[in-house]
């Protein structure tokens, strides 16, 4: 049957590839790259590779890391993923102080602005909360199991962020929704009061980021499978502006690559003054820059930064005050990578702040490897290799695998009317009377 063939293909290709992730310390002290179960950290102040240590008694990551995040003040760092472990690290010593076991695979993680709580989200749409602290050690922390505080109804949570003032927690899902919830003072009792829903995306929402003007008022940015980046007044759930990326990227790509599904927004990253937004787009080898005018509440296309041919960033991060935009590309579990190291490629774009980068006559470029801070030492630590030639072929396969896995996980499957009818007729859960 044709149907079974399709299902078999789906099942055999079920190996999910997790994209490589990058996160930068808010004060620029360090940068972390996660690929597969590996967490690689480089200390930018000391100029040395960080060796991670673990006091928590929990195991290390054994499956792909899906989410990494620094706390707002940079003191803590959290990593979580498919192995259902959430590890909390102190960034001064890079020692893991807590390992939390989740019931389900974790798809997003965030640290509350006061550094007191970790929130984790899973593919079933539940958001869990854990109090930070050595589990089992201190007084009072008797039972430090994750507590469910709210949920999206059976939808994969793709991204979760705290607002800059710490009052709200925003969660994005595969069902086109962004929910903004009041984060209560006693969150262990649950977060039940919804401030708004930001509705407008016509496909899955893949990433969200808060951005704010220096004097305080903050906004939410989101990117999705509908290849749009949107700017929201998240207090009222109002869509302020939409930037359709497809038209701009379409000019730069081969025509067969411009199908909607291939131009999903992979990640977004605003500058700290909110004036620029870097956008990573599936199938586009480079980064797109949008100008973000938070006073006029407008998002507009500014320019693209094209990178080497096979380099399509999977994750973005920015570090200030240096003003560097970090981009990585890579994936876990590549079949042809067995045995060898998990390769990633890192590129850095300098001057990621309002100024030269925003001016129209400036043609931005990525730092060549020798200009990268701490040079080859950093690249070797975070990429796993310096051999570009070898990387190119790996990256090409990474690229294909990631497209498939993102599509499979997040895009809703559409079955034809005939196929659904056929499935109904051959369903095997009917009670058979003897």
């Amino acid at each position, binding site marked *: 049957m044709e149907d079974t063939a399709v299902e078999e293909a789906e099942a055999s290709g079920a190996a999910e590839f997790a994209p490589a992730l990058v996160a930068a310390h808010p004060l620029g002290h360090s940068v972390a790259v996660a690929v597969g179960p590996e967490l690689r950290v480089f200390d930018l102040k000391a100029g040395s590779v960080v060796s991670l240590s673990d006091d928590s008694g929990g195991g290390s990551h054994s499956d792909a890391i899906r989410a990494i995040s620094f706390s707002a003040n940079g003191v803590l760092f959290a990593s979580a993923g498919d192995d259902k472990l959430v590890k909390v690290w102190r960034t001064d010593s890079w020692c893991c102080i807590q390992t939390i076991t989740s019931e389900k695979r974790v798809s997003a993680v965030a640290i509350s602005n006061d550094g007191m709580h970790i929130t984790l989200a899973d593919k079933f749409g539940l958001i869990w909360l854990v109090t930070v602290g050595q589990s089992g050690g201190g007084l009072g922390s008797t039972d430090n199991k994750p507590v469910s505080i709210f949920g999206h*109804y059976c939808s994969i949570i793709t991204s979760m962020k705290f607002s800059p003032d710490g009052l709200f927690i925003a969660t994005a899902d595969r069902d086109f929704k962004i929910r903004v919830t009041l984060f209560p003072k006693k969150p262990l009792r649950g977060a039940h009061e919804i401030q708004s829903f930001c509705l407008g995306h016509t496909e899955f929402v893949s990433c969200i980021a808060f951005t704010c003007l220096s004097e305080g008022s903050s906004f939410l940015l989101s990117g999705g499978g509908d290849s749009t980046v949107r700017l929201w007044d998240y207090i009222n759930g109002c869509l302020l502006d939409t930037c359709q990326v497809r038209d701009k990227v379409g000019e730069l790509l081969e025509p067969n690559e411009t199908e909607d599904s291939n131009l999903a927004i992979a990640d977004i990253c605003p500058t700290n003054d909110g004036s620029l937004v870097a956008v990573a787009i599936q199938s586009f080898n480079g980064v797109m820059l949008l100008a973000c005018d938070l006073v006029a509440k407008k998002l507009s296309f500014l320019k693209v930064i094209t990178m080497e041919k096979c380099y399509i960033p999977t994750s973005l991060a920015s570090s200030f005050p240096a003003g560097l935009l970090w981009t990585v590309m890579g994936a876990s579990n590549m079949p042809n990578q067995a045995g060898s190291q998990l390769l990633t490629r890192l590129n850095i774009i300098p001057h990621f702040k309002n100024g030269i980068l925003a001016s129209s006559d400036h043609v931005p470029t990525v730092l060549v490897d020798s200009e990268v801070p701490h040079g080859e030492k950093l690249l070797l630590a975070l990429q796993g290799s310096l051999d570009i030639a070898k990387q190119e072929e790996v990256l090409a396969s990474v690229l294909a695998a990631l497209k498939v896995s993102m599509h499979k996980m997040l895009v809703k499957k559409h079955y034809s009317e005939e196929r659904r009818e056929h499935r109904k007729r051959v369903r095997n859960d009917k009670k058979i009377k003897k």
Partner: protein
Amino acid sequence: MTRGDGANGGGGGGGGSGQHQGAGKLPRKRFYRARAHSNPLSDSHFPIPISPDEFDLSQHYPRYFPDGEGESRDGDAAAPRIRFADVGCGFGGLLVGLSTLFPDTLMIGMELRDKVTEYVKERILALRASNPGKYDNISVVRTNSMKYIPNYFRRAQLSKMFFLFPDPHFKEKNHRRRVISMQLLDEYAYVMEVGGIIYTITDVEELGEWMRSCLEKHPLFEVIPEELLKADPVVKLLSTATEEGKKVARNGGQTFQAIFRRISLQKE
């Protein structure tokens, strides 16, 4: 937005639909047989408004939106809004009962099973045709309200929500399919105005306890004292207006109600 005909004859059910009936004639239930349950977890294959702004009320309440499309979006303050939602409306008995009780209030039934939705749609059209000037304030939409409530209603838009005789989902594994849960109550609280009332009723004791305990635990709802409920004409309809309620009454079964008020959270 709402689906046209087309899905009527699908499946193995009765071939006839209400199309050939004369105006004003009530549809017959036997042509709209459907499974008793539908999986709320499955991906939906029917159109859903992207946001409440896209929810075109003129199709549902033509008498309230005489100028047709677009009216619902302009002049927001003046345009009437849906105030009652019957979640899992089934064959629409409650809507029909409420329609004459609150003739100036827009209300909508939400139902996941498409044949049942089709039946309610025909039923309302027939009632409108045979009772001119009446039943213009009720309508029905096929949707999964467990997933898409915020796509239909704005914050604090509703003053009443009804959950009458929902699926009990006895197995613990399936409790997350229950239409009342701590998580879903967050969303219901969001679309309800402060002071709005949520009505639940079931003939399954276990589910009745579950719904009551969820509402009791939820910080945005408080129980309404019995004395006040006696004065509420809607309460009587819960067990008398719906098909399921009548069935329970016929069999002399017991029902379990939990009726709570949406409150604001300003204590802390």
